[in-house]
């Protein structure tokens, strides 16, 4: 975009897929350690409050969690396939696959909306009177972590959707193509990170009780 001011200057092509990939991975490492820190907080509190965590986890709906796991795994496959389509030169297929991934991502958020909505209607949200008055310390910690970790994860879903928007635009106007796939590749890597985090969130919150 800065090119507009220096339109007369010849810019060398700085495209470098390997550097792009390293940069993306370095960013993913920071994300892994961010969620990793939260997972450590979770495991310490679980260790200190085993019964409360056991009890609180029964409140969560395993079905909706499993459903979201399945659709997120499918979406990871579709965005991985879009890279293959782009490399084969099937531009339309690549776009269609990213669009499918995008729609599944929206579906995940819709489920999350209903899931959190049910919690809210039961009077469970961070700092709610129901939580402060009726729950033990351990249950409050469980739901606090539940909202923070699934909320932060949902935020990553939203960011992933925005990046997908740029990837779709890039593939559509030809700036992202078989010879310059980095934007789509990195978009995929980010989406897989989101999937990876959910792979751990799902059993820790929904399954262990």
């Amino acid at each position, binding site marked *: 975009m800065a090119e507009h001011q220096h339109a007369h200057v010849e810019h060398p092509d700085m495209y470098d897929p390997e550097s792009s990939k390293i940069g993306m991975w370095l960013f993913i490492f920071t994300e*892994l350690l961010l969620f990793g820190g939260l997972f450590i907080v979770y495991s310490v509190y679980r*260790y200190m409050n085993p019964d409360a965590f056991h009890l609180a986890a029964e409140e969560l709906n395993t079905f909706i969690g*499993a459903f979201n796991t399945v659709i997120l795994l*499918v979406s990871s496959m579709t965005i991985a396939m879009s890279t*293959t389509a782009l490399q084969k030169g099937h531009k339309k297929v690549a776009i269609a696959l990213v669009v499918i991934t995008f729609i599944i991502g929206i579906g995940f958020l819709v489920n999350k909306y209903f899931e959190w909505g049910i919690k809210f209607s039961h009077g469970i949200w961070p700092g709610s009177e129901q939580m402060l008055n009726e729950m033990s310390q351990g249950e409050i910690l469980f739901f606090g972590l539940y909202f923070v970790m699934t909320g932060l994860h949902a935020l990553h879903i939203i960011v992933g959707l925005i990046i997908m928007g740029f990837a779709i635009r890039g593939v559509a106007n030809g700036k992202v193509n078989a010879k310059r796939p980095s934007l789509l590749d990195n978009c*995929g890597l980010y989406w897989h990170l989101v999937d990876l985090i959910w*792979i*751990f969130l799902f059993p820790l919150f929904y399954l262990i009780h």
Partner: protein
Amino acid sequence: MSEDKHQHIVPYRLYVIVLVALLALTFASIGITSIELGEFTVAAALIFAVLKSILVLTYFMHLKYDKPYIKLMVAFVFAIFVVVIVITFLDYLYRV
């Protein structure tokens, strides 16, 4: 870019196989945690999660086809995470 020459194109079929494996592991983990295993429930759930994440990292995130140094960096970050968990629990388990 010389990179383009040895860029590996992963066939669609492989992604489908990986997805089927991931779904199978998901349902297996739901199944195994629904049985009362007591203390082992957490371990069982985590083992399945680790298996799934290895599949995602290896195939979806292309680590299998990446250069060794990228694999090494990823392994290093996970190793740091494991070390921090171990140290944290060494602290909590042996507190008086």
